[in-house]
């Protein structure tokens, strides 16, 4: 097994790397299309702005290779902006185009008097608790979130879990071996590390 964490100049990559190393996985940072050779699992982390992240992915020639990886149903994990980029577009950067793997767009949380960013530990409610991604996890587990935009997924069957903040929003997508989370498993202690283990076992 060889996990590759896409380094496209954004995000706290070492946290993701440290988390995979802590569960005993071989993990390394990759930043060129050539480096995808020989990987069994691909992880796209992400922090910052949607358009900026999309542009950086393109600049490194990784946009199409990542799309092809997902199209081949190879194990893929998107985290935070790495999840949002799977969608077609984002309100944060109206001119930017996402990978378009999942149908929908990223929208800013509506102003209902709650603090934005949605920051801290919140409860995640699985659509199908029997899915192996939830193995050994408590019922409706808590994970660490920090984001101002949410993913408005259009295809119901893509939605793996919801979270409640300002509205009930889709917080996780699963399609075959593609897993994508709005929350940060690498910062979610026991629950997060368990979810990463479950991802590797899919």
């Amino acid at each position, binding site marked *: 097994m060889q996990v590759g964490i896409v380094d496209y100049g954004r995000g*706290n990559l*070492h*946290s993701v790397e*440290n*988390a995979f*190393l*802590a569960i005993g996985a071989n993990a390394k940072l990759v930043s060129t299309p050539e480096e995808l050779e020989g990987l069994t699992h691909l992880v796209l982390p992400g*922090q*910052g*702005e949607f358009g900026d992240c999309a542009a950086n992915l393109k600049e490194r020639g990784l946009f199409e290779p990542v799309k092809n990886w997902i199209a081949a149903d190879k194990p893929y994990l998107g985290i935070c902006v790495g999840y949002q980029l799977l969608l077609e577009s984002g309100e944060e950067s109206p001119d930017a185009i996402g990978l378009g793997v999942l149908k929908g767009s990223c929208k800013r949380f509506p102003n209902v008097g709650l*603090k*934005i*960013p*949605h*920051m*801290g*530990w*919140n*409860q995640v409610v699985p659509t199908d608790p029997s899915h192996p991604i939830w193995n050994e996890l*408590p*019922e409706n*587990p*808590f994970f*660490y979130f*920090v*984001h*101002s935009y949410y993913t408005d997924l259009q295809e119901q069957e893509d939605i793996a879990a919801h979270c*409640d*903040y300002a509205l009930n929003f889709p917080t996780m997508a699963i399609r075959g071996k593609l897993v994508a989370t709005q929350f940060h498993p*690498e*910062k*979610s*202690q*026991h629950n*997060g*590390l368990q979810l990463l283990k479950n991802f590797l076992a899919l």
Partner: protein
Amino acid sequence: MLAKRIIPCLDVTDGRVVKGTNFVDLRDAGDPVESAIAYNDQEADELVFLDITASSDERNTMVDVVRRTAEKCFIPLTVGGGIRTVKDVREMLLAGADKVSMNSAAVLNPELVDAGANAYGNQCIVVAIDAKREGNGKWGVYTHGGRKPVGLDVIEWAKEVYNRGAGEILLTSMDADGTKDGYDIELTRTVSEAVGIPVIASGGAGNLQHMVDVLKEGKADAVLAASIFHFGQHTVAEAKAYFAKHDISVRPMRKDA
């Protein structure tokens, strides 16, 4: 529901925890990495390191502390003290910090807040504000550990850093700090209501009820505390159990989940 966060804070100087901690089974209570791991094991929700001397030489020591902590602790880590440039922000984030906290540097150069947020996202920019009461419902911004007034109104300053792109405010009452008489509820509520970002209340925690009060009446999103945890008066688990009893949403302990 979004849980209220419990955030132990470790004051560090020259790579050592100031005053130390007295956890059971800790080989070296002065080692910030060991203390951080102890809080990680206690299931604190986040951790803060404050480099209280923060000379340029010491930043390298801090970077090493952050790197070693990030290898072992899988909860969010904020680092403050001596962050003066976007390069400093980047250095800490690359070492494994999730957020950086800036205080006097933001006062001296408010554009640092914009620049940091633009480069790395507002989620990782925390502005620390040291507030001292200057009359009825009025607080002034101080730097240098509360010794130096800078001529800014706390509420105006909080709004300004919010508008400049800060993702969170770490608010310390200089009047309450060290007294163990409770947080400044009025200050915390006034700031929390004035901005649209989370506010961490700091200064004055003497018991668990003080924390409940500032979370409920003070409308804080998180509580920062040092001595109440460092010297074994309470564990994070006890705080969570107490909060839950008072209808405050908490992240459950692993064994309770």
